[in-house]
């Protein structure tokens, strides 16, 4: 699985790590039952603090995407397949937004606002 962090981005590093895991699950590159790489390995390879990665994993656990067990590490739950199910729809939406000249950031905030208004 691919984890990427952009040091020039305003988004906190832990949020970027979590977003990478979500993207991997959405694209089907990691599946329910797959184990996430150890936080230590990720932290060392990306040269970020171990607690940054742990924070990301905890967030993913709080939203139900992974379970964490001692000795087993972080394991992807069935919720990962839900992400994969909407992957196609999201890609369609992004394509449509691009045609209409809307940036991905704008699209993301529109999605958030509309769902908050309901």
């Amino acid at each position: 699985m691919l984890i990427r962090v952009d040091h020039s981005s305003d988004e906190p590093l832990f949020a970027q790590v979590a977003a990478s895991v979500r993207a991997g699950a959405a694209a089907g590159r990691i599946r329910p039952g797959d184990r996430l790489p150890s936080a230590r390995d990720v932290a060392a390879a990306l040269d970020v603090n171990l607690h940054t990665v742990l924070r990301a994993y905890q967030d993913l656990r709080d939203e139900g995407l992974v379970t964490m067990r001692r000795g087993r590490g972080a394991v992807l739950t069935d919720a990962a397949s839900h992400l994969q199910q909407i992957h196609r729809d999201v890609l369609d939406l992004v394509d449509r937004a691009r045609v209409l000249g809307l940036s991905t950031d704008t699209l993301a905030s529109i999605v958030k606002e509309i769902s908050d208004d309901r």
Partner: protein
Amino acid sequence: MTADASLARMIARFRLVALFIPLALTALAVIVQLTLAPSLPDPVAIHWGVGGVPDGFAPVWLVVVMTAAAGAVLPVAMGLSALRGLRLGDQGVTYRFLGAVAAGLSALIALLSTWSLVLQRGLADAAAAPPVTTAVLVSSAAALAVGYGGWLAQPSVPAVRQRERRAEPLDLGAQEDAVWLRTQSLGGFGRTVLAIGLVALVLGTVAAWLLPSDPTLRWSLTGSLVVVVAVAAVTGAFRVRVDRDGLTVTSILGLPRMRVPLAEVEAAGVVEVNPAGEFGGVGLRSAPGRFGVVLRAGEAIQITRRNGRQFVVTVDDADTAVALLLAYQARARAAS
């Protein structure tokens, strides 16, 4: 000659050397052994100890069955699995070698087992069987000759470097860092072979210690068992990692650990690997010009090093791994 015609010729020759010759030699050996059977002692000697004295005995039918099993099943299993790769359009020196080994191996088994019976013709008691030293030497030489003949009978074709899928470098920002990690375990086929080997060895070793048997046999079986367990533990699963330092492949035991530093990466791409044909099986494998961590058939990261040698690791999602590697390579080249 067109490509299709030369491929057809290569497959035909491989089939002759790796399948038909072993089957014919084994059939011939079995027929001769069955013809000899009435004039042989029962049981016959099947093993000779130090000094050429027979010390292992078995009924004739067992020798015939063993000849058929080892002389035909082994090379044919090897040949058929390679033939699958050849039909898919793969080719190379590994197949030629595999074919030659299959022919030589079956020649050795057929000749030696039959010769050892011929030596016992007319004896009342197999304990009086003469030494088999000459038979072993001559059979080995003959097997080498048959193997070499099999090598010559097959056309020399350059190994197709499997069409490497060129990946696009990952779109990596100037301030962006990324790591790709994946754990890959031994595929179903490798696991089955290992499991069968392990069960057979455990049973054999336990039997050797419980039943009266030769201490050499006991210890060599125990030693083999230790080796197979170690191989199973080491090659069971690997962690594969691509980061700004390059590619790292580590056994889940922690050792062995193999690295290709980014500075040594000349090119990287994705290939489909056929373990039997290209590497002669699964595991940590050397082939001419390449080294492979081969755990299953299918997609793999293939790195060509600066010195021209290739490093291959079969792993899922290899495209992403290669894309990241290429992105870091491009960044390093832009910086220098």
